[in-house]
């Protein structure tokens, strides 16, 4: 992959601060010049991570809400496993998905290894426990406050749990942001199942890893800044929306 913006490497090796300054300048230049390769990489990163988060949210929020109210033998063990999976190493997920999707694997017939679809699957598996575990805790705590009231009004346990997700929608947004941060910043899984193919499966994190290994630190740092800015923008968006609702409440008082 070749970026159109030029930069030099050697002069930064002795002065890291200059490297940071130049990286920032490079990042700004790449963004302002609307570098097509940069945007293609950013677009793919966003598409893969957002898709994974949306899919994982469907299962994770419902599963977390269900786990908050379900009572069955082995529930504690399942919760312990779920909490352990919060620290699931991304390379392990990548390896497992690779084995499943490789030609000799059980899902090899799908033929999606080294495609963005494989990357979406890997990141979905990675963030699913995060969403499910945090949603379970959120619903569990909220039900202490209003669970009896909802049950009194006729809500089934699962309906009450689902209503708590609606009630705590800003906390759910924070959970989703956490999941997105985990997905968009991981490198191990997408590197293994995507293969870091230029123009096909190369995302921001794999590009950073590649450019760093080539010694091209300014570009790697520039992409890191772009990545951080993306997450910061999403976070700011949620914050503004949250304040807007808070503002309405304040006016209403």
């Amino acid at each position, binding site marked *: 992959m070749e970026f159109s913006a030029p930069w030099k490497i050697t002069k930064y090796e002795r002065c890291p601060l200059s490297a940071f300054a130049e990286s920032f300048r490079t990042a700004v230049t790449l963004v302002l010049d609307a570098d097509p390769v940069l945007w293609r990489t950013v677009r793919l990163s966003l598409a893969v991570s957002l898709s994974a988060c949306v899919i994982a949210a469907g299962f994770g929020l419902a599963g977390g809400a269900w786990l908050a109210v379900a009572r069955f033998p082995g529930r504690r063990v399942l919760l312990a496993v779920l909490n352990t999976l919060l620290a699931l190493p991304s390379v392990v997920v990548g390896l497992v998905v690779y084995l499943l999707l490789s030609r000799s694997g059980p899902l090899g017939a799908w033929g999606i290894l080294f495609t963005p679809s494989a990357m979406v699957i890997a990141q979905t598996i990675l963030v699913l426990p995060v969403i499910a575990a945090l949603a379970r805790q959120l619903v569990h705590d909220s039900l202490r406050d209003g669970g*009896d*009231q909802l049950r*009194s009004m*006729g809500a089934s346990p699962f309906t009450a749990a689902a209503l708590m997700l*609606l009630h705590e929608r800003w906390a759910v947004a924070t959970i989703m942001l956490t999941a997105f941060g985990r997905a968009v910043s991981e490198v191990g899984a997408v590197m293994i199942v995507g293969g870091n193919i230029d123009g096909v499966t190369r995302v921001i994190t794999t590009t950073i890893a590649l450019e760093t290994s080539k010694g091209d630190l300014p570009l790697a740092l520039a992409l890191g800044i772009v990545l951080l800015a993306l997450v910061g923008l999403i976070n700011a968006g949620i914050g503004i929306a949250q304040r807007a609702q808070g503002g309405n409440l304040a006016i209403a*008082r």
Partner: protein
Amino acid sequence: MTAMLSLDRVGVRYGNVAALNDVRLRVDRGDFVALVGANGSGKTTLLQALHGLVAHTGARTVAPQAAAQVMVFQRPFMLRLSVWNNLRLALWLASVPAGERAARASEALQRAGLSELRDRQARSLSGGQQQRLALARAWATRPAVLFLDEPTANLDPSAKKEIEAMLARFKDDGMTLVMSTHNLGQAKRLATRVVYLDHGHIRADLPTTRFFGEHLDARADLFLKGELTWDME
């Protein structure tokens, strides 16, 4: 009288603590039962047992016509939605047909004097307004039995008066009500029966006029006089 609810030898334990012991109670159609007693005497637990919100030993019988029940809590829980949507949601949970929900919600708001606040966030209302909304929300579902857990605790005198006026209207409509309260004056004004609880036991269950007019057992007498102190409890 038609029995709506009855408990037979009901017990509730929280760990090692027995919150209710061998309780027998019958609630008839049109009753307004006030549960009185000191803190920790088991009033809230008895309400929860009657409503089926807590696991218990013994038998709880609910007549078919008493299946629709709602409880209003001391601190009403409102979802982070508008007043209107909180009402609509309660009607949806009560399986009220979609076509009737808007009319019922409007009527309930009107009855509670909250029509002008329908688009406000429910959680932004004052304590008294939230309690009125909780009562309106419960009333909108047309329950056969309404449970109230100290509905006027922590409210100022004018808000208390508004809540009592709503409860009196519910009673006049023929609704069956069971309310826990620390306010003996309120029990005297509203209830048709008073049940006195002490350490999880029912010590007195009498029509209101008799409860306040007769010589009760020593502890109930002390409670009525406000002289049952913590070291005697």
